[in-house]
């Protein structure tokens, strides 16, 4: 840490912990505004535009309102669990940012040798908070939402981790900073299939877009946070967007080369931010385009489509690493011409094979 003027571990820790909290809170505000404004053109409307120019202060108004709303705890609720659930849901989201490299080697602990393993382990924890909320509210709909989120997270964790494995194979390291350093060519070009699988699994992991089954309005009212109001509800809102931000940051690091980009080396942070926004835009795009999946279709899609595809992706990348892995200390650029057709063929094949009963019977379950 010779770049750091104080040269003290605890000073570094305190400053970056504070910086990350501020970064997450600010970016969540910006993301909420960005999403609601981006919905406008997609749905041929304006979006929020009354609260200050371009509705820029809309999230501020939401925050003021929701923080000062009455806090209701149901009489049948498990009071202590009901109180602690939003914190348990939000804490892992904040912890993910500990290993994200915001700039070359700059972050809380960007050089942690098991960085990406840490991200996978921590991000799976937020499901505990959601289930605690669902269980403790003493409401059948919230419990259903909690049950759904467990099934969904367990199913989509598998393809997520498998797509990360292909990245780790090529980069040759679990450290987030070294994964970025290994990306002479961004990995979404080298491994388009891996990126697609990661993006879809991440969408399911953060319970957004077409996978927001745990708070499906038309089926289970508001899902796991049905009994939450005021500040605790705001925490869940924060956790949802914070998780989207975290997954965008991880995707930018793993597949878009994080802080790498043309130009001066000091603008690495801006490149990182730009890529995070781009991936968040992809998430918004999917959310506003696709209708919500049915529960059985969700599980079928996860286990019968994404999981085999992720396995094939790992197999293809591993075989390529054995054959060409030693050239110039990395994957050669022309691997694109093998991986892109391979991705298209695999997706086509699986879309043909992924039919219940070979396409002969419908699903009546």
């Amino acid at each position, binding site marked *: 840490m010779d770049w750091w003027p104080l040269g003290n571990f605890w000073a570094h820790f305190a400053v970056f912990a504070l910086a990350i909290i501020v970064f997450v809170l600010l970016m969540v505000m910006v993301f909420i505004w960005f999403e*609601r404004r981006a*919905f*406008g053109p997609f*749905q*041929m*409307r*304006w*979006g*929020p*535009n*009354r*609260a200050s120019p371009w*509705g820029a*202060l*809309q999230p*501020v*108004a*939401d*925050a*003021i*309102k*929701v923080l*000062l*709303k*009455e*806090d*209701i705890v149901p009489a049948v609720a498990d009071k202590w669990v009901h109180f602690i659930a939003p914190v348990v849901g939000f804490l892992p989201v904040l912890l993910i940012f500990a290993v994200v490299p915001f700039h070359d080697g700059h972050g809380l602990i960007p050089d942690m040798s098991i960085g990406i393993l840490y991200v996978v382990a921590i991000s799976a924890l937020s499901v505990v908070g959601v289930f605690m909320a669902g269980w403790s509210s003493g409401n059948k709909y919230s419990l259903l939402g909690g049950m759904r989120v467990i099934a969904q997270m367990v199913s989509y964790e598998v393809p997520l981790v498998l797509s990360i494995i292909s990245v780790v194979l090529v980069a040759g390291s679990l450290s987030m900073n070294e994964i970025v350093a290994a990306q002479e060519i961004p990995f979404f070009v080298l491994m388009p299939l891996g990126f697609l699988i990661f993006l879809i699994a991440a969408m399911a992991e953060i319970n957004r877009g077409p996978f927001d089954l745990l708070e499906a*309005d038309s089926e289970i*009212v*508001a899902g796991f*946070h*049905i*009994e*939450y*109001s*005021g500040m605790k*509800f705001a925490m869940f809102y924060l956790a949802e967007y914070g998780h989207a931000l975290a997954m965008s940051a991880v995707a930018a690091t793993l597949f878009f080369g994080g802080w790498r980009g043309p130009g001066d080396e000091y603008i690495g942070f801006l490149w990182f931010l730009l890529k995070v926004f781009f991936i968040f835009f992809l998430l918004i795009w999917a959310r506003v385009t696709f209708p919500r999946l049915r529960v059985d279709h969700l599980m079928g899609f996860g286990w019968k489509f994404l999981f085999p595809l992720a396995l094939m992706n790992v197999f293809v990348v591993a075989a390529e690493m054995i054959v060409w892995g030693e050239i110039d200390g990395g994957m050669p650029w022309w691997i694109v011409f093998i991986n892109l057709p391979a991705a298209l063929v695999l997706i086509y094949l699986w879309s043909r094979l992924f039919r219940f009963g070979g396409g002969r019977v419908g699903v009546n379950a």
Partner: protein
Amino acid sequence: MSSIAKVLNWGRHYSTWPFGSGLACCAMEMVATASSRFDITRFGMDVFRASPRQADLFIVSGTLTWKMAPAVKMLYDQMAEPKWVIAMGACAISGGTFAHSYSVVPGVNRIIPVDVYVPGCPPRPEALIYGVMMLHKKIDKRKFRQQD
């Protein structure tokens, strides 16, 4: 009016989340208000909350029967303070055409307090938006420690 009240009222003004409930045909006009042509999103009201715990504004849209009345009363009680109610349409205001019927509540103000009445049968989306703007005016005048 204190400056704290101003800030609070500003927040509540621009973030009045409606409760996603509809009773009768007026609900269709409420849905049209939320759709892109009339675009209630502009006022920051695009978050139609499905749970009464998180909603600020109860738009009672349409005929309220005595059989439905306990449910509406319960939903209103479940909403967290501060909360507002718009009575939308002639039936919600006074029972409308069915005012003398044995089964229709002659005005929702018999069971829950109403802030703004929006007349019409059904009111056009523009009328509902005007009602929402009247409600915004009411919110702006709110005192810091006001109990409704």
